[in-house]
């Protein structure tokens, strides 16, 4: 399953970059993220709790940030394993400045699931993936606003 999308962030590219890669922000913005701890540089361990169709459960996950080209490009790799099966997703994010206070964010993603999630969640997966990604960027937008207004 794969997809792509884009949105406009109300922040300059440098600011947007910092917020996007801030683990505290990531923890707040990833749906169902219960706990996130740094394992090494750009690699985190996280507990994700996600329900897809009738398959709800916890995934022990790693979140890795790779291919970093500050401040315009990176890759986010999420791998999770748990009772309901396994999830592997990779997103490529590109930032382009529009003006001083706005940045265009374009993303593409690929995700694979296995085990019970694939068995009975397949019909919903496309929709769920979209939901999770849209939710992520919605929360991120809010977070950016909050940080900007606090600044």
């Amino acid at each position, binding site marked *: 399953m794969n997809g792509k999308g884009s949105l406009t962030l109300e922040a300059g590219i440098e600011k947007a970059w910092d917020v996007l890669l801030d683990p505290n922000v990531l923890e707040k913005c990833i749906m169902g993220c219960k706990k996130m701890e740094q394992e090494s540089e750009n690699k985190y361990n996280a507990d994700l709790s996600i329900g897809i169709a*009738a398959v709800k*459960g916890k995934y022990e996950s790693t979140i890795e940030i790779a291919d970093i080209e500050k401040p315009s490009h990176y890759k986010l790799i999420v791998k999770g*394993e*748990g*009772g309901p*099966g*396994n999830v592997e997703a990779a997103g490529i994010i590109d930032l382009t400045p529009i003006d001083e206070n706005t940045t265009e964010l374009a993303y593409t993603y690929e995700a*694979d*699931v*296995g*085990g*019970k999630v*694939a*068995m*009975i969640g*397949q*019909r919903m997966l496309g929709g769920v993936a979209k939901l999770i990604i849209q939710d992520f960027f919605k929360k991120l937008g809010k977070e950016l606003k909050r940080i900007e207004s606090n600044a």
Partner: protein
Amino acid sequence: MNTVIGNPLPRVEDARLLTGQGKYIDDLGTPGNTAQAAIVRSSYPHAYIQSIDITEALSVPGVKGVITGKDVQTYLNPFSVGVSTPVKYYPIAIDKVRYVGEPVAVVIAKNRYIAEDAAELVKVKYETLEPIVDIEKSIEEDAPILHENVGSNIANHRNFHYGNVDQAFNDADRIIKHKFNFPKYTATPIETYGIIAQYESSSDQYTIQANFHGPFIIQSVMAGALKIPSNRLRIIVPKDIGGSYGIKAGTFPYMVLCAVASRIIGCPVKWIEDRQEHLSASSSGTDRVTYIEAAVKEDGKVLGLKMKMIDNVGAYIRAPEPACLYRTHANSTGAYDIPNLMIDGYVVMTNKLPTGLIRGYGGQELYFPLERIMQMIAFDLGLDPAEVIQKNLIKAEQFPYHTASGGIYDSGDYEKAFHLALDTGKYQEFRQKQEEARRKGKIFGVGLACIVEPSGSNMGYITIALTPEERAASLPKSGASEAATISMDPMGSVNVRISTTPSGQGHETVAAQIVSDVLQIPTEQINVVAELDTSTSAWSIASGSYSSRFASLGSSAVYYAAHKVREKILKIAAHHLQVAEDDLTIENASIYSKADPSKKYSVKRAAGSAHWNPMSLPEGMEPGIYETYFYTAKKAEAPDENDLINSSVTYGFVADLVTVEIDPETGEVNILDYITIHDAGKLLNPLIVDGQIFGGLVHGLGGALYEELAYDEKGQFLTGSFMDYLVPTAPEIPNITIKHIESPSPVTPLGAKGLGEGNTMSAPVAIANAVSDALKPYQITIDSLPLSPNKIWNLLSEQKVTNS
């Protein structure tokens, strides 16, 4: 008393089933210390197991233990299987997983809730490997290999030549060929697998209660796997099984797994499978690719056939596979007189659920290409499909008909049955209707299928998987046996014990009818015990419920056992009445002299003498009345050195005519009428017969239109619930007209043949033919199933067909 055999007697089973008094596996009592199992399964199709961490699961209160492949390996041998390929199949993964859903650990706890919760805490680390699910790619050079020690994914390969195929293809006016894909689909009984296993260390004995219905040759396979003498493995099958359609032959790996779990944990272990487990990890039919080539004359006569079949048995070849490829070997040419035949048969393993019996077993995979090519021949030659079928059907005077591959079709009148189908379905009239409909932009089609329905498997057929040289080096297998025991107690009441482990087919009713006829006792007074216990029942390796073997074999065992009882009570009566035995007959529970009807002796008294007064019995006669008969059909020889094999004992015939309308906007196939004509020899109970036919037809309808165990290209299983795996329900069932002709079998004492699987074999192709016929104006031909609206719509769209 009139003859009861052949009457549409209501089923004796139904009273208990309809009042909640059925005794299914989950209704059986268990010892107080019984624990429940939950199974941790692989979510990867192909991976090495790096580690399994059970510590967290073990710490859950109520958990009695967690076992893994490494734990059970001590107690088990790999299951044996009928091919020489050294595939090591255990009921749980040892160091590698090969399909999604494969067991990797078993959590045993005091109840299922705790077991399931703890199962989520078992942490398995995998090193993933590239999976392979495509049949043809699996045999390519660079394909990922499932079993490294085998060296390829081919589990079995055999080549067969019968007649003179080269000559036939030289003499042909045309060669018509096509490739067909038959999907992996399954049987979906309401009751899933259920097992209660107990190990007793004092006697080193395993007792397993399970809704397993044989073939009981697998009892030896299980005992071998458990490393015990076979009489230390007692299997008890409850009298009620909530449907199977073959799939419950596949309970055996789980029976062994639960048995070993009981041994390791030290208490009885119960496991009831859930629906998701059933769809992903029980068993299924095979998916098959067939390349078929027909050598034909301009008039539609088929001179010879070449078939390359590649059967996919999933991750492990396991008993009774590779039987799917060979069960129909004798009837490979179907209902047609085709003396020249070449078969190139492959059995391959891929990262999918392992396969086994399902209703129709091999038949639907065979007839899909065969009956599709018959229609394609007609279209190619500009002939009517009915004409091509007619041209090639075996004629009534050719019976018993010897097929190219060694089959002996016992009886039939295929032309008569086929014409009855054409007449009943008003074939010519429909053709006119179709023309009119086409002019109005509607899409109508009619499909025909003529198939031979094998029943009563010859236990020797599976050895055709071996070469004649390999067979010569091992002990031959033959026969098609079944046993029944009939006893008369001191009051003259009759108990009948059968070993056909019915799963809803009404064997108890038919057994009572047969005994009633032979002993002249009303059916209500006959008690039939369907529970099978390998320690106390009369059974043989062939026993069980599969290959429609009750009507041909089980009923014959009952019939002859009843005759043994009859002979004994007649001998007793003759002795007491001082008349010749052959002067006596039984009527209405009374034995009397034909010459002098005043000389009478009641059946009850004869039975009483055998128990109360054995001193009065004729010289040399044993007391009591307890007779067992082991029956085998005679026409069930081991394969010969030319690979000729009569793989089944009896062969019925089915002619189907189905009419469809396709909605051009949605691609939905609407079945207008389904006509099916059956010849299953003498019918023992027409009411049960029609019930079985309806069930088999609806299963076939599922295969044609709805059902597929779908995997993505990465080996993930996608249809783990009834929302993803679609089965037909009442609204999907079309108008069905069933008619019969009866050509009694000369092979069985009652003239009966098996039935109930026929339409599972015929419906997928009959409907595919109807759809192909409908879509002929658009140059669309059907070569894969199921025919979902999505598939048809896409085909239509590709042809740029619009509603206008």
